[in-house]
């Protein structure tokens, strides 16, 4: 929502902080709100904090459904 957040992959964890990234970009975020996160997970980052881990399987499913809708619409 009004709360800008984007998914980034966890690379390394140290205490409350994780190095996360995508496309060669890396930054440090605070992970106190997602304490169980592990390297390889995707997290949603808002204002320098990871606020949730991402279920990539669920994300994939939505993509599939969208594809089917687009096809049905013929676009």
């Amino acid at each position: 929502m009004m709360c800008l957040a984007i998914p980034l992959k966890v690379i390394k964890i140290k205490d409350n902080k994780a190095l996360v990234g995508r496309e060669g970009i890396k930054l440090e975020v605070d992970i106190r709100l997602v304490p169980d996160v592990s390297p390889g997970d995707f997290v949603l980052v808002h204002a320098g904090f990871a606020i949730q881990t991402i279920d990539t399987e669920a994300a994939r499913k939505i993509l599939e459904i969208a594809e089917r809708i687009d096809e049905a619409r013929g676009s």
Partner: protein
Amino acid sequence: MKERIITLHHNSGKKQFKLLKHIEKLLGSTLVSTENDSGFLEEVVDTVTTDSFTISPVFFPGGDIGKLSVCGSINDLVMTGAKPKYITLSVVLEEGFEFSRLDKIIDSIRKELDENGVKIIAGDTKVMEHGALDKIVINTTCLGEVLYEKLCVKRIETNDLIIITGPIGLHGAAIMAERKGFQIDFQSDCRVLTKLLAVIKGLRVHAMRDPTRGGLAQILNEFSHSTKRNFAIYEDKLPIPGGVKTVSEILGIDPLYLACEGTAVIICHPEDAQDLLERLKNAGFDPSTIGFVGGIIERPLLILKTRNGAKRVLPMLVEELTPRIC
């Protein structure tokens, strides 16, 4: 005794003289002749551009303020279709600035100038009190000779194609990332574009512009404003590197407003576009056709055509780009 920092004393008398000589030595050129108050041109010039440069950080991935201020003015001349020949260099420093950093900056300047055969014709140094300036401002004024008189926004026609010579937003994204402490795997594209002068020879290129401050959206808006035409670009044809996209998403900014410092937008007759693209590739560029020029209209706009066929107006920015959380 080797001095470590610039002080206010470098503004007057003996130390100013020494500072000038120090920079001249690094440059291998005279800034202020001891014989005359100004420098003499030996070659014909007929076009001039000037810019003052401030940037934070002063050193950034892919360059520094020295390189930037040379490339910036040289590119402005190149965009006019002119061969850059001479440049003036005025450096305003905050006291406390380290000589070691100044030396690096001057060295970047020398390197760019040497590679491009551009000569320093006049120069100046000033020092401001600590706190009266954030580190350094450089002004360069570049003088050159017009090779392509017909290169002018006025010549832009309906259906001309919009070609960009390389990736979008590298400079702006590198600076933003550096300020926020992100690690990035790309650099500012800061570099001179003089090679374009040979590339466009004989082609119906109608205008060129380097999308510096304000980025692609800004200069296409300016083109649109001054030609009274709509300009249209296709979202899925824009060469925005993944890294630039990611930095932009994290910070909530639009990459189309991020500066390039070594990339040009070329407006070209559609029949010559293919030729131009090939020549650009041969010259080492990585060009793309990103859109086209529309007809004359009363309230012209820059329009982005999205992947799914929707249209979106890209206005001129009214604010500085700043990170958002919402």
